[in-house]
Each structure stands twice: as structure tokens, then as C-alpha cells.
């Protein structure tokens, strides 16, 4: 009798072990800030309505980033050490699906038209185009070590910034091929497309011993360098809102604000070695990588409003809007 109990216990144990991990569900209606923490492989969820940390998912996997699918309910996780990209149902807190991509995925974005997913594959040195259901539609070979992906408003053109190449590749999505190369500094990273102004902003770390302290602005039409804006050191993340253009320099932990005339209208030192930000309506959220914090900064006055603790090494921020319950 005792033996049966023991076997049942072991059996249950195995079943429980095989069962995918369930995390705290994220309510559908809650406006949420998702922080991807790469040092400990976790996700931090901030309840933006109540301004507090809601929960933390300790995935304990080498995730490097996330992307929210157009349905607003599914979070796609990737990492260059992972064999698959993982799709989590936020409302249920469960792993919904896995797409076998192979290792090397370092970035993923959803096209602005909501039809495609673009994966940057550093093993294949290519941009891979997927449907939102996980079907691979095509691969476009680019230069070595692609990393940053930018896209135009319609999502038909993507701009690939490489780490080790002195140029940027422009991909035509319908054609699935590189149609143009724009010369930019080596070790560039981060950028911004201002389609109406026909501007392409490019940031970076600087190559070798040199430290990048400028934002390079190129013409979207001609690919010519239009201007350099001084923004020390290492500007690597850009956001444009109705309040202006914001550039984040991780080397000096500075956020700078520019107006239409590319004049600096304000700056603020925030956090320690920040790498990412995301814009709300009136505020910016900035991930401080070294101090494991998320700063909430007022866009208009560039003032820190609040800060929240995050998991270890916040590297990417995503806002998930609340969904009405029908």
C-alpha cells in the first residue's frame, strides 16, 4: 500500500515537473509596463494605473528582449542563446507557443502594419521575416552583426544597423531584399526615423577606443549626413513624442530633449547606465541597467517623478495598454 502511495507521489512529482511553469497572470485591463531584465532573465510588470510593481516573472532563461504581438495579449521572448522564441499569454501567465528559430535571435519587432514580425539573426547575419502565426516568410541577408531595427510608418521598409559594419542596410519588405546601403559610423546602435522630416537619426557606442558622443542625422532620401548633434556619451536610444525628441546616452546616464530645430531644450541625468526607454502619454520610463531601477520622468519638464525597482539588469521596456473587458 505504502509503495503505491510512494509511486503516486513520484508520478505526481514528475507530472508537476513537466508541466510548464505558470506565472502570476497579468490582468487584461491593466495598463502595464514590462521590463525585460537580462542579467537574471526575468520580467518586471509595473501597474501603471496604481504606479506600483505588480509582479515579477522569474523565467531564469537567457532572454535578451521581448516584443508585444499586435493582439496586445501575447508577449514574444527571444534570446541569442535560445533555440526558440517563446510566446507567453500574459493574461494566463503561461507559455502558449514556441517557434523553432534556432539560436542567434538578438532583436524582434512587429511591423507597423501588424502583419509581420522581423527577427534579427546574428548567427545567420540576416533579418528573418515571420508571419504573426509563426510562419517564416523569408530571410534577407545583411551585413555582419545586425542589431538595431528601425522601420517606416507603413512597415514596408526596415533599416538594419550593424555593429561591425560601417553601413546600414535598407530592406524592402515586400521584395524581401536589401535595396540600399547608407554609410554610418561603425558600432552604431539605436536610431529614429522621422519620416515626415525625412530624417534618420543614428546613435552608437563608438568603435574601438573612440567614444561616440554625437547623434548622426542622415537624409532618408539621399542617405547623406545632414548634421551631427553633440550628446555625450554614447547616445543609443531615441523617442519622439509631442513634447520633443528624446535621446538617451548611457555613457553619462543623460537624457536630452530636442525641439524641431534640433536644439537641445533640456537634459537630465537619470539612473546608472540606462539602455532603454519607453514613452507614456506625459512621461518617459527609463531603465537604469546598473542600478536595477525604472525611472518615471516627466516629458515636459524633464524631472524624475518616481522610480521603481526592477529585476537584475533592465534592458528593454514595453508598454502594454489596458484592454477593455467586453
Amino acid at each position, binding site marked *: 500500500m505504502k509503495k503505491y502511495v510512494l509511486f503516486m507521489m513520484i508520478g505526481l512529482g514528475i507530472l508537476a515537473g513537466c508541466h510548464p511553469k505558470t506565472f502570476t497572470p497579468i490582468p487584461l485591463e491593466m495598463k502595464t509596463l514590462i521590463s525585460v531584465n537580462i542579467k537574471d532573465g526575468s520580467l518586471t510588470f509595473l501597474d501603471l494605473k496604481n504606479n506600483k510593481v505588480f509582479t515579477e516573472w522569474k523565467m531564469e532563461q537567457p532572454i535578451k528582449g521581448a516584443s508585444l504581438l499586435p493582439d496586445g495579449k501575447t508577449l514574444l521572448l527571444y534570446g541569442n542563446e535560445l533555440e526558440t522564441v517563446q510566446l507567453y499569454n500574459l493574461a494566463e501567465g503561461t507559455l502558449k507557443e514556441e517557434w523553432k528559430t534556432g539560436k542567434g535571435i538578438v532583436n524582434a519587432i512587429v511591423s507597423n502594419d501588424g502583419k509581420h514580425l522581423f527577427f534579427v539573426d546574428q548567427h545567420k547575419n540576416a533579418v528573418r521575416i515571420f508571419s504573426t502565426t509563426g510562419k517564416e516568410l523569408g530571410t534577407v541577408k545583411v551585413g555582419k552583426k545586425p542589431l538595431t531595427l528601425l522601420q517606416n510608418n507603413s512597415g514596408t521598409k526596415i533599416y538594419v544597423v550593424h555593429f*561591425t559594419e560601417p553601413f546600414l542596410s535598407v530592406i524592402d519588405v515586400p521584395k524581401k531584399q536589401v535595396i540600399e546601403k547608407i554609410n554610418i559610423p561603425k558600432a552604431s546602435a539605436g536610431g529614429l526615423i522621422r519620416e515626415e522630416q525625412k530624417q534618420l537619426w543614428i546613435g552608437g557606442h563608438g568603435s574601438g*577606443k573612440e567614444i561616440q558622443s554625437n547623434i548622426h542625422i542622415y537624409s532618408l532620401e539621399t542617405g547623406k549626413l545632414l548634421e551631427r548633434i553633440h550628446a555625450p556619451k*554614447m547616445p543609443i536610444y531615441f523617442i519622439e513624442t509631442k513634447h520633443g525628441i528624446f535621446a538617451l546616452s548611457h*555613457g553619462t546616464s543623460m537624457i536630452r530633449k530636442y525641439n524641431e530645430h534640433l536644439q537641445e531644450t533640456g537634459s537630465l541625468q537619470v539612473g*546608472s*547606465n540606462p539602455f532603454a526607454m519607453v514613452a507614456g502619454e506625459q512621461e518617459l520610463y527609463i531603465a537604469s541597467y*546598473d542600478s536595477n531601477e525604472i525611472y518615471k520622468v516627466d516629458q515636459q519638464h524633464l524631472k524624475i517623478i518616481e522610480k521603481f525597482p526592477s529585476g537584475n539588469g533592465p534592458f528593454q521596456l514595453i508598454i502594454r495598454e489596458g484592454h477593455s473587458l467586453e
Partner: protein
Amino acid sequence: MRRWSMTLVQKIWFTISVGVIVTISFSYFLSHYFYQKLYVDNVEKMLMEEGKNLASDYHGGPITEQYRKQVEWYNEKSTAEILLVSNPRELSACLPFHIDYDSLINEEDRAKLLKGEVVTKVGFEERFGRQIMGVIVPLLDEQRLEGVFYLYIPLASIQEITTEVAYIWIPIAFVFVFILLIAGKMMADRIANPLKEMEAVAYKMAHGDYKTEIPIRSNDEIGRLAKAFNIMAKAIAEEDMRKKEFLANVSHELRTPLSYVKGYSEAILEGIVQTKQSEQKYVKLIHREASRMERLVHDLLDLAQLEGETYPLQKVPLVFSQVIEDTLEKYEPFLQEKNILLTTELNPEIIIEADYDRIEQVIHNIVDNAIRYTPMGGNIHIQLEQMNERDCQLVISDTGKGIPKEKLPFLGERFFRVDKARTRSEGGTGLGLAIVKQIIHLHRGRLYFKSKEGKGTTVVIELPTLNGEWEE
């Protein structure tokens, strides 16, 4: 094939050599290790203090040119290399982007530095292309790692110092080893030489030469062994002497009666003897001498048997006084003949465990002697008493001519005669007391003599009684 074996000297020398070499090399490595460790520790402490001192001048905010210049000035004056690093890339700030850049500090160090901890580095540093001992002190503006002080000293300079030590050490160590090895060889010889001498002497002894002595040079184990060896050699020499003397005695004792027998028988054979009467007399003499020889041979056999430690005694409980009385009975005719007065004083309760025949032989031999040496009309007194709980004492005293004091210790030795000329004529074999001594010895008793010249001799025998034996 003969197995190669080491001599004692080689063994001792080998042991000493191995010991010396192992000790010296071990102490060298140990001192080297401690020296380096202490020195490296000291350098680390110094660098850390220096770095912390420099860092205490930083009060947050971006690192200014003035501060950098000050540090540069200080770097020129300081023995250590001091780098003020504020390039975020060198500080691994861009690490999540997998930049192919070999930064000065790695992610792990950065995490420590962000916590305000000081990082220590010992070993090869690719950036400097050499072995270094370095200390990294963070410059923190709140949680921001604005820069670090990287202080280092090439390890080569530390090793130079230890090699310098080695230059002095190694020749000294060599001389020291050399001296110790020679001293070891001498010591080994000193130990082994007396042994070699002993060996030589032992061979000489095997060939019958007992005279050589080993010179004793020390009072240690070897010296004592040499001493014991000498004593042994002396004992063997004495034993050898005794053996020779004994043989000489035996042959001498036998020769006298033999020459009698030969002489008289020749006289008879050659017809020198005229009358039947004289012939009768000569034959009687021959017979007497033959009996003497017979007694002598008998006694010798007895003695030889008794001197073998394994002689089987037929031990039974005996009433000692009874044995004495039985023996004395046989002497009555002789006593009367010599008109000797025999008095006894015997304790009848004394019981000994002994061989009847042998004890009888003891009494026989002693009383025989007493009668032989006591003149006409003398006295013999025999006394048996309990001496203490364990032993009894038998005292046989006569009023004979006594024995000179200086000859007392020799009584009981084979063929020892107090008066050589006279005794032989008086019929003894010279072995009687030797046999007595041996029998008493076998019974675990004691025999001694007291005597005053002209006054008489007392023989004392002490024997364990049966009570005593049991108690033991």
C-alpha cells in the same frame, strides 16, 4: 644475478644526504613562497590604500580635467602605474551589446565596483601585455560608475626581488649542502669504523686469537657494544683457558696412575719381581691405581653430566635428616678406625624435594673429605636446622687442618687441591667438591666454606625446603 646492496656507511650517508637536500629545497621553496606572498600582500595593501586615498578626492559628478591632471601628476611621482579610467566602454558599460572590445574590467568586476567594492587582480593582463598586481577602486556618483582608478605594479619587479634572493641563496645552499654531505660522510665513517674493527676481531677470534681488543672511543651505543664485545672476548678466552687447563689436569691426573700401572706391570713382566709376595704387592698397587682411574673417570662423567643444564634430577620429597643418617651409617667403620667422634644435631622435620642419590652423593663427598682431613681423635659435627621459612641449613664441621684463607674461593673448582702433593696420595680425585657444588646448584641451593687454618673447616649447604618451594 647478485643484488646490489648498500653498506651501512652508504646507507647512513644516503639517509643524511636525502635529509639535507630535502630540507634545504623545502625551506627554499617555503621561504620563497612566504616572501612572495608577504611581498605581494604588502603591495596589494599599499596599492589599495593609495587608490582609496586618490578616490577620496572625488566628490561625484563627471570627472573633470583638473582632477585628471592631478592624477596624471601623481602618477608621474608614484612607483605604481595609476590609470584614471572613465571611458564607459573600458568599464564594460556597453556589455549587453556584445561589443567586440576587450574592456579593462569585465562584467563581474563591474558588478563589484558598482557595489563600491575594490577589485584585486593578480596575473597576466592582456591589456598591459604582462603579469601585474593591480587594484581597481571605483569612483561612484551615487550608483553611477563614473570611472575607476586602476593601480598596478608589474609582477616582474616582484619576481626580480625574489630572483635576487635566489642568487644569494643558491650558492650558500650549495656550500651548505656540500659541507653537510662531507660531515655526513665523516659521521657515517665514525659510526661504522668500530663495527668494521669488531668484524676483524671476530674473524681473528674465530681463528683462536683472543688477545686483540677493540679500542673504545666513545660511550655511546657503539662504544658500549665494543665494550661488551671485549668482555665477551675475554670470557671466551677464559673459557678457552679453562678448557685447556681442564684437559691438562685430566691428562695429568690419568698419567700418574697410568705410569704406576705401566711401571709395576712391566716389572712383573720382565721378571724383576722375585718373590710371590712382592708380586702380590705390585698387583695390589696396580689394582689400586686402576680403581683410582675408574673413580676419576666416573667422577668426570658425573661432572660432565651435572654440568649439562638439562641433567634430569629425580626429585622426590625427602626427610633430610633421614638421608643424612642413612649416609653416615656407612662411615661408622672408618670413623672408628680413625677414632673420630661424630656428633649430629638434626632437625627431623625438615623436608626437602631432592634427588635422593645426588643428595647422598653430596653428603658422602663432604663427609669423605672431612674424615680424610681430620686427624686421629678429631671431631666431626653435623647440624641440620631450619634457617628461615624457606631454607634449611646443613653445617658439617671438622677439626681438620683447615684451609688457607686465600684458597677458599677456589674450593669447588675442578681438580683444585689445597695441597697438591699430599692429597693425591690421600686418594681424592679432585672432583668431589666440584660435583657437590654442581648438585647444590641444580637444587637451587648455596654452598660455601668457612675455615681457619689448623682449626678445621666448616662446609655450609643451604637448600630450599619443601614449604619454600611451594611458596615460590
